[in-house]
Each structure stands twice: as C-alpha cells, then as structure tokens.
C-alpha cells in the first residue's frame, strides 16, 4: 500500500488513553496531538513509562483510545469495528517487537507467511514474496529453521520480513534493537531506513537507542504521556 508523501498518514488530536486499575487510574498518554506525513522515518523517544508503548499500541490498532481522534492511513481508529481493525492490522501496519515474538513452532518461512495466510492468501500465493524478503534480508539459508535455531539478529530480521509480507504502508517498531548487540542493532536500523528511503514506507521507531537518530526525518519526544521536545 502506498501513501503520498505529502499527506499526513497519521493524525491524532487530543489523543488520550487512560487505564483503570482497580480504583485508580493510570494515564498512558494524554492530549497527544500529532501529524506524521507519509514516507517519514519517525523516531519516538522517551524513558520507561513515558507512553511510547501506549502510543504505538494505539497506532497499531491493538488498543482503542479513551478520548480524542486518531486517523491512520485514512482509517478512523475510534470508529472502526473489530473486523475493520483486523483488516487494518493485516494490511495497513506491520509490527516489529523488541522480543521478536516469532511463533516457536513455525519455521522462519512459515512465520513470515503467517500474516498473509491470516489474510486469506494461500501458501502458494504468499511464498514467492516471502522468499524474496528472505533473500533481501540475507536469510534464504535459514528459511526452514525454527526460531530456536536462529540468532537474535536473524530472528529480528525474520520479524521484519513478517511485518512486510502484506506490503503495509506503515511499519511500527517497538525497541527493535533492544535485544540485539550493537552490530545487529545497526543492521536492523539500516534495514528500516532502507524500507523508508527505497520503499517509501512510513516507519515509526520507538527506542531508547541513538542508532536511529541520524536517519530520522522526524523526532518526537514523550514524557509522562505527553509530547515534549525530543532529548
């Protein structure tokens, strides 16, 4: 899916998420206003508890806002139904996680094909693209390996391939280098940058690390659930 570079692909107004824990309330994010144009590489910075994960989960359609407006790739995430959100997660965004989150009983190839299969494609239809992604990521010799047989860097690259299988417009990465050594971390950031530059994908990276700072086109800071100047 392609989005024009000039149009805001993510637009949030007064975005708030409040968690109720027993009698108390915890504010995840509060009154966040945001506009991200298509084709940007955004680095989201903030300490633990700043609200990065909350914001990412809202953008990924994993959670719904308590208040405010949120449009992502022309999807009003406040008003979409569950089935529309499912379609959104399949086709519009691709998620990359800190702890990789590969299914342990599936091979690398199968993990990559999984979102396509969930979207209703057959294995025959999804395999060519998966193979192309594996080759691009240097994993073609690992396609039949289980996650337990891959290194950390290989697992994260597999996860990147999985995120790209359905050709989403937006890639969301939550601390993608958090469990990698600096060399592999650098590789991953460069891959994400390549996705942004060459493939014109909007990439949003939530991270403590400074590896992505140089490549970012937009930097956003978060503190105590609110947007601040990036550190």
């Amino acid at each position, binding site marked *: 899916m392609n989005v024009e570079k000039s149009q805001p692909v993510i637009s949030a107004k007064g975005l708030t998420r409040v968690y109720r824990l027993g009698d108390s309330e915890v504010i995840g994010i509060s009154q966040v206003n945001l506009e991200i144009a298509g084709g940007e590489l955004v680095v989201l910075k903030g300490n633990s508890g700043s609200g990065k994960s909350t914001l990412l989960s809202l953008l990924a359609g*994993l*959670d719904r806002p308590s208040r405010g407006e949120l449009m992502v790739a022309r999807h009003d995430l406040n008003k979409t139904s*569950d089935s529309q959100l*499912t379609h959104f997660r399949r086709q519009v965004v691709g998620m990359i*996680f800190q702890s990789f989150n590969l299914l342990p009983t*599936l091979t690398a190839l199968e993990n990559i094909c*999984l979102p396509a299969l*969930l979207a209703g494609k057959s*294995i025959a239809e999804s395999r060519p693209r998966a193979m192309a992604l594996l080759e691009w990521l240097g994993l073609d010799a690992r396609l039949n390996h289980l*996650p337990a047989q891959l290194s950390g860097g290989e697992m994260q690259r597999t996860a990147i391939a999985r995120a790209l299988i359905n050709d989403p417009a937006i890639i969301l990465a939550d601390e993608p280098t958090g469990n990698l050594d600096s060399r592999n971390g650098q590789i991953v950031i460069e891959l994400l940058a390549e996705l942004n530059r060459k493939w014109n994908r909007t990439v949003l990276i939530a991270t403590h690390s400074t590896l992505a700072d140089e490549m970012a086109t937009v930097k956003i800071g978060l503190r105590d659930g609110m947007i601040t100047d990036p550190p």
Partner: protein
Amino acid sequence: MRNFFFLRLFIWFSLRDMRKHKGRVATVLLGIALGAAVFSSVRLSVNASLDSFAKSMDLIAGQADYIITRPGGHVPENLITHLWNHRAIKNVSPVLSTYTRIAQAGSEPFLLIGFDPILDRPLRNWRIAPTTDPKAVVWFDLLKEPGTIILSEPLMRLLNREPGDRLLLEHVHQRSNFKILGKLEPEGLALAEGGQIALTDIATFQEFTGLFGKVDRIDLKLKPFATAQDLADIRQMLPESIQLNLPTAARESGQMMIRAYQLNLSILSFASLFVGMFLVYSLVALNAASRRHELAILRSTGASAYHIFFIFLAEGAFLGITGWLAAIPLGNFLIKYLLHGVSQTISTLFVRVRVDELSLSVFEISFSFAVTVGISILAAYQPAREAMQVSPKEALEISQLGMRSRKSPGQLALGGLICILLVLPLSRLPAVLGMPLPGYLAILLLFAGFSLLAPWALQRISRRFSSLLLRRAGIPAYLASRYVRDSGTRTAVSVGALITAVALFTALVIMIYSFRQTVEYWTYETIKGDLFLTSKMGEINRFRYAIPQQVIDNLQDYKSEVDILPNRRFFLNYGKFPYEFELLDIQGFMQYASFFWLKGDPHKIRPMLKGGKGVIVSEVFSNRTGLTVGDVFEAQIEGSYVELPILGIVRDYRTQGGVVFYSMPHFNAQYHQTYWGGLRFFFKDRSQDLDLAVAKLRNEIIDRMGDKVDMFSGKGLRGAVLRIFDETFAVTTVLLLIALVIAALGIATTLTVMVLERSQQLNTLFAVGASFRQIRTMIFWEAGFMVVIGELAGVVCGFILSYLLVYVINRQSFGWTFLYGVDWGSLGLSIPLIVITALAAALPAVKMVFRQPPATLLRER
C-alpha cells in the same frame, strides 16, 4: 527452622500463585475430590455390607468352637445326648433358623431362630428387656408356652407391635399365631440381620416348620483342656454324613465372594482417581513450565535444586490433601446412593446382607487419604524433577520458546509399546490369592502404554495432516495442528486422561453388552419353563423345605395339560467355595430346554446324563475348584456319599457360587429318596397362547392351594433375572460417568492453561492480523485434535481392555466368561456424545483468550 523456611517458601511461591489462579486450581480440586469421593464411598459401602455380613455370622455363631452340620440336610436332634456326655464338651446348643414373614401381602421376611434358651445361654449373647411385670421370667415362658416369640426392638417397631400382642406368621406348611412375650435388648444376637431378628423355643420352631426331631446344626463349646484326640473322638461319634466344622467356614465363604466384588468395584472407582492424577500432573507441570523464569530467579538467589523439587512435590501433596478434604461432603452424598445399591447387589448376587449402619473405619479413611495424596504426589514427581533442572542462568535469558520437553515422543512411544507388549503375557498369569492381580497390572500397563503413545501419535497425525488442513480447513486449523504437534507431553497428558476414560467406557459398554447378551441367551435356554413353583418362601430359605405332599398330589390333576419337572437343590461347600448341587428331571428338561454348553460334546454327554452316568458342572464350579471333564465329583449329600464323573461343563450365571447337575430319578435310585424342592411346568400344547394358559393355571393353583406355595411365571422370572442384571450394573455405570467428567475437566484445565501460557503468542497472532474468530477457532481445533486422538486411541485401548475384562478379570474374579459381543449402536451413539462433551470443555479456554488486552504485548520492560 528449616521446615518453617520451606513452609514459608511454599506459601510465598506456590500458595500465593494458586490464589491468583483460583479457577484452574478449583477445577483440579474438583477432579480429585470426585475421584476420592467415589473411591472412598465405594469401599465404605462394600465394607458396610462385609461388616454387616460378618457381624451377623459372628453373632449367630456366638462363642461356639465348632458346629455340627449335615451337608444339604438336617442334623438329628438325638445326637445332642451323645455329645453332651463327652468329657471334652462343655456346652451343646441345637439351632434352627428360617426366614418367615407376617401373613400379610407385601411384608418383608425376617430371620427366626429356634433354640433352647437354657442350653444356648453360654454360647450366644442375648438379653430380654425387662417387662412391666417384675415377676415375669420371659425366657422361661418361652420354654413353657408353645407359640411364643421374642422380637428385636427394630423388628417390633417395624411390625408395629408391643409385648403381649399377637403375630400371625406364615411358613411353608402353615400359618401360626405367635404371642410376643418381650423384646430383645439391642446387643449381641439382637444386632444380627440388621437388627431384624426373632427368637423362639426350639419345639415351637419345629412345630411351625415341620422339622420334628431335626435341627440345622449343633453348636459346641469345648472345655479348655480339650485336645486334638478329643476332637478326633467327637468326629468318630458322628454318623458318616455329619460333619464337624469351624463356625467361621460359612462366614469365610460369603466374605470371599463379597471381597471379589469389592476388589472389582475398588479398581473401577480407582480409575476415577487415576484420571484425576492426570489433572494434578497437568497443573503442576504447567505451573512449573509457565514459571520457569521465576524458578531461575529462585535458583539464582540461592534456592537449591532440591528446594524446587520439594516445592512442586508439596504442590502435588497440597492438591491431594485439599481434594481429599473436599471429597468429604461429596462422599457423604454419594454414599447414600451407593450403600443401598451395593448392599442390594451383594444380597442378590452373593449372600443376604442387611446394612443397618455405616462404620467409618479408621483403616478405610486412612487408606483413602493415603491413596489420594500418594497418587497426587506421584503425579507431581515428574514435573518436580523437570523443574529442578532449571538453571540459574536462565534468569538472565528472555525465553520466548515456551516449554522445552526433555523427553522425545519417540522415547515415550517406545516405553508405551513395551508396556502394551507386556499386557498379553501378564494376562496369561493365574490369579494370586484368588485375586486377578496380574490382570489388573496388565490393565494398568495398557493405560500407561496408550498414554505414553499419545505424544507420538499427536505428532505423527498432525505432521501428516498439516498441509491438508491448511488447504481444506484454513490457517486456524493449520496453526492448531502445528501447536499440538510440537507441544510435546503437555497436551499428551490430557489426551492420556481422555484415553483412560474412553477406554474404560468402551470396555465396560462391550463387557456389559456381552454379559447381558450371554445371560439373556442362558435364561432363554436354561431357565426355560412356563411356570415355576416352590414351597412358600422357598427361595429365601434356599429351597430347604419340601413342597407339601398335598400340593404335589393336587397337581397330578394337571398332568394331561402340562409336564411337571421336579428339582431339588442342595447348598454345599467345596472347601471354602459354595456351590449348588441340583437334581432335576434331565429327560424332561432336555425335551424343552437346553444347557448352555461350554466344554464336552453335547451329543455324547446328553444320553449319559439322562442315564445318570455322571454330572455336568458349571464353568464357575470348574474354574473355582479346578475340576474339569474327566475328573470325579465327590460330595457328602445328606446321608449319601456321591462319587460321579464329570461329563461336561456348561455356562451358568446363577450367582452364589457354582452348580453341579445330576439326574433326580437316578439319585433317588442310587443314593436316597429326596423330596421335591421346586417344580417347573411346561404346557404340552405349545401352539396355544401360553401367557393366557399360564395365568389360568396359576389362578387355579392359587384357588386350590393358595398360600402354600410361591409361583413365578417363566416370563416373569426371566425378566427378573435381566432386571437384576441391569440394576447391578447401575453402580458401575455411575462410576464410569464420573471418570468421563473428570477427563473432561482435564481437557478444560489443559486448554485453559495453554491459552494463558501462550498469551504472548496469541497476542502476536492478533497483532499480525488474526481476528478474534480465527484465534478462537484455532483453540477449538486444538481441543478437537486432542479429543479425536484421545477418542480413537481410547476406543482401540477399550477393545483390548474389554478382552481383558471378559476373559481374564471376570474369569479369575468370579469364575465365569461370556460370549464376546459389541453393541455397535450404543458405542456409535456414545462416541459423538463424548466428543461433544470434551469439546465443550474447550469453552472456558476460548473465553480466556484476550482476557488481558493485546496491547500488553507492547508493555515496556
């Protein structure tokens, strides 16, 4: 201090975690409680019957050192004077007993004992309650006045009588009016027969029953200095047909039969506990696996591997103890139902028992506690061993790889195969101490074998059908098959529980059907007769009383319409094994009916049997005594010593021991004349409406001889046999259903915990585009795989188990086998029902999906 530390660690680590997961713990506790309740209440019920029977027998036997009896007959009363003069004999007491009832329709029979109150005093404990007349000496009035009786208090209450009232009792030959002199204090003899007993003087008894000059037995108490030589002298004094025995013989043979039944029911009820064991394994294993990181932290902060090991053993023990305690109210409820069912079954099949109270024996309570806690600890052993292997360095690792199974399915399958291969040789071994212990071990190995094969089967089948499922059933089915394939022993444990429950169910359905079909064939071939007639209360009094001659004479008028076949049954013992020696008109019998032949050529045997050349024995008799075709049957029967060759073996499902058949006319000619104990009528004209003819004949006999005989239509008798059969298996069916419920609980627990444990994976699926429906469908497919494989393996295991039950367990426990048959209809209907029930067990797991929002996937660390 160390113990307190461990207790604190257990509370902090295990109990607090259990408190967080109340639902799954409650499910396991329910399973254990059900199993323990079933096991305990079955044993207590049978023990109550055993105790009641033993108590009755002991109370009636009293202080006697020996008893004198005549097998199949009565002892002449005049022996007493000879015995009384022997220097070694201290006390002699003649005793008679019979079942009688008040002359009122629907009244229940009770035991009437005839004795000499003076002679009997030193031998039995009984006391008459004081009456309103302080000068009355009731026991003396019992001697003095004919037609007097003393009742136990419960009997008096039941009959709504008081001392001084009259009681019209009926017996074979007559009705007699008795005067109630008093009531027995509730102690000693008054407690026999469930407290429903009456005493009368021996002369009154003999007059009432027609047994003049005869007694059932003479009880002896010897002097302290009596020697073996004295005993030999006493034996010498007795006529050839009279025997001197220990008083415990009758009790022991009855107890032997009840114990076989108790063992079978105990094993069956143990199956419920066994299935519950899988629940404990499942929960402890899942606890250990899901908290692996915490275990690593514990180890890294100083806990030893043995701390971890004992924590999980303690979890098993805790579940066992708590489950056993929870079983108490359940057991209270179950026992009310079981006590009646079990005692009725025992009375019908083996010996008459009347349970008046349930005693909570310390042994039984301790035994049930020990078994429940023991198997819970055993179930926790393997997970505890695996948990202690967790290395401290895992505290630093972020593991997303889930549970690592250390045993390969292949290794487990090999173990399973070995277990299954041992089944056949074990099943061939003979019983040990009269119990089919090798057979039960074979059954245990069969269950273990199939359960160990489960992981390999899950893996193979999932691997084989994965691609097909992806093409035909979509991604949820495919993911489910992959997970089940690779989840190793985790899912296999619940599948093992289901295999056990389904196997039991299948085997018992087959066994009960086979048994019923065979019994049905037997009743229609052997219990043939249009009408059966005995003396009044003949069956309960074991046909010891002759049909009155007047009745026999009157029945001659019907000889043009019916063939009347007489028979006589003697209740004897071969060592400790009770059996019946039945005389019948073989010639007449074979014209209308047939034996159910098992061994020997019927064409050769029939003429020999008709000619009185030998006997045929039942399968039970043959298996119990070891006697077979070609051996010689020997027995003292009343005044004659019978020695006859065994011509053949037949199937006979009469209970209370085995049977030996011989021709009545030839017995009368060769040995001695004997009276008729029962009659069988066959209408000569078989083309008429037999039901109508039977009803007409019956009414005519009642009009002419009414209260002197008991009659049963052949149809009614055959129906009653099958009805009793169905009732005796009702208890078995209930136990079976409970085992299935426990297995379903096991599936529910496993699936629920699998969902909780995989929440990260499931949230990942959600994040990469799976819908709620797809994920829930996947859970149902996982349940489906487990259930289908459990069902299929269970059915195969069940067929093998059915062979063991029919040809090994039944044969060694009760002496009989039956024709193997499968009720495909019932089996076919029940299997989908089991599948639906087990799939319903997946519902709690489906509800658990996304109990926490998927956004927790991104929770910052």
